[in-house]
């Protein structure tokens, strides 16, 4: 589904990704771990199409197409979803409006008509109930005055409504209490299916207790320095990131 080869990317003068390669197939869950500043979030932003990150080398193909050619909105309509580490507060834009606009943008791209307003609200309320979100959040400004946990739940709600083929969750677990973490994990697990792929970007092993990854990769200085199964996450937790850094430099 997603094929990244020798990706090099920089923001301004600083090179952040330095030859990263990763292959993700449909049905798989990948966890990307690494210390702060290793390039985890940059990878997520580059896949989503942030224009501040310049791709200087390498290729990213998505379902056989050159992903780097596409604008962020085109990537979204093709089924890529980025759950933000810091979801943006947009006062004055109604949460329900954004959800509907997002779903309709995708439907239009697929040659479908606009979603039925009644069905849409019903579905949104169902998804919110499973995430433990008060339906009142639909009528609030996007993330406006939401707590950290509410913002992350709201990201998962958007993901659930958009049903992406490739979901990248950037530190969705950070700053969550255990209830919120469980709700978020349940939302992610509900999305797991043979035709979807999920990339979890995380600093800690904690989320992986609830969402079991097929592969774990460790990022250091803009490259994947080690890959393995879920046991790698546990090993990492035990030995700390210094261990991989040393391994990378060796």
């Amino acid at each position, binding site marked *: 589904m997603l094929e990244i080869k020798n990706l090099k990317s920089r923001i301004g003068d600083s090179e952040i990704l330095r030859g990263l390669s990763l292959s993700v197939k449909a049905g798989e869950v990948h966890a990307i771990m690494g210390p702060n500043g290793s390039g985890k979030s940059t990878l997520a932003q580059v896949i989503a*199409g942030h224009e501040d990150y310049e791709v200087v080398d390498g290729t990213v193909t998505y379902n056989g197409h050159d992903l780097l050619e596409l604008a962020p*909105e085109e990537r*979204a309509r093709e089924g890529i979803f980025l759950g933000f580490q810091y979801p*943006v507060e*947009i006062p004055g*834009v109604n949460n329900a409006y954004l959800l509907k606009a*997002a779903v309709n*943008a995708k439907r239009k*791209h697929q040659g479908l008509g606009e979603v039925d307003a009644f069905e849409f609200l019903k579905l949104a309320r169902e998804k919110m109930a499973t995430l433990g979100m008060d339906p009142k959040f639909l009528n609030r400004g996007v993330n406006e005055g939401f707590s950290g946990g509410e913002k992350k739940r709201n990201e998962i709600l958007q993901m659930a409504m958009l049903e992406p083929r490739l979901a990248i969750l950037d530190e969705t677990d950070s700053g969550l209490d255990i209830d919120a973490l469980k709700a978020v994990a349940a939302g992610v697990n509900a999305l797991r299916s043979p035709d979807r792929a999920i990339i979890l970007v995380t600093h800690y092993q904690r989320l992986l207790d609830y969402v079991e990854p097929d592969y774990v990769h460790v990022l250091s200085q803009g490259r994947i320095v080690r890959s393995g199964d879920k046991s790698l996450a546990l090993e990492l937790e035990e030995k700390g990131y210094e261990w991989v850094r040393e391994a990378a430099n060796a």
Partner: protein
Amino acid sequence: MKQASLSIDSLREVVKTLPDNGLTPSREAALAHLDEHGLPTLRDEDWKYTDLSPLVDISNRWLTAGGQQRPPKLPSATIEAVKTSIDAIWLVISNGTIDEQSIGAIKHKGIEVTRFSDAPSPFVMSRPLADLNAALLQDGLRIRVTGPVEKPVAILIVDRAGESVAVAQSCVEIEVASGVAAEFIEYHASEGDADHYANTVLSIAVGDNADVNHVRIQNRSTRHVQTGRTSIALGRDARLRMASYDLGGRLIRNDIDIDLSEPGADIAFDGLYLAGDGQHIDNHTRVDHRVGPATSSQEYRGILNGNCRCVWNGKAIVHKGADGTDASQANHNLLLSDKAEIDTKPELEIYADEVKCSHGTTVGQLDETALFYLRTRGLDKRHATQVLTHAFAADIVLRAPVAGVKDAITAIVEARLAELIEADAAADLLS
């Protein structure tokens, strides 16, 4: 800088052609005032950002051509469209001429509408451009609300500039009796290809303990020029909620003077201005807190795109002894183009001791992070821009104090924003 000045001689000739009625003495007084003071220039502190040359030029061309008052051709499609969009009791001033039929149609108890010529008041409006208004005014409208009225009272000031240059004056006095609640709408529209200058004067006197909501919509052609002065006085424990929407006009200058001379007065006035290529919109407000306790608050927001300029100057003067004053001012601007310019200035002068005053202004671009966030949700750049600019305008739109007019305002604000962003998208394609 040398500025063209108004041709007083031509003005005097044109004033002579106006019907001799009860307004003649105030016209003479206004003419004398204008002769002595002239029109404001860029050297005047309050006018330094707004060059009045376009309106001087239009006025001089019109005056030297004889200054003919264009006979109103009623009804026009614009008038009907506006009236249909808002359910209200309508009074119409078309090309400076009061529509007698619209006065005659008012049969509501609690409203009295008369003309200045019926019972003239002496010339008192000596403020800049109000003198020009008084000198050329054909007739003015006086509206008194003395009891409850089931609908808003709306004044439509509409101008049509057909084949040749034209100038129109309108003057409206509103008075709301003690303890009465009333709603007003002031709608400015214009059409036509010729140059046009409209000069309006409005006064609102809110009686003791009266409660007034007022919405002003300026949706003129972007070819036309308008200046307007609104003078507001609030009685004891009186309350006024006001919102102003400036969407059109080539050169727009609004002055609002608010006098708070009675304790317990409470006024909130907000504004939204949307400016595109070639537009200049200037809002000057002044609140005089003469006694306390009294409250005034204002928030103006602007969205600017293309080569345009806007000005906001909010002055609040808390006079000696006006303890218990609570005054706040805010002005926030969204600049969508690097060719757009805003001059924003809050001015607080405080001579009393026990006061609560605050002010804040911001000037910013669209939030790039929010734009990217929306795009990752599948909204294209234009849609995302539209959503964010709407959100910026939404607060002021929602604050329209007359409920029945919100839908109409939402529709025209949406339409104008779409035009502004469309222009931007076109520029993107060319660059």
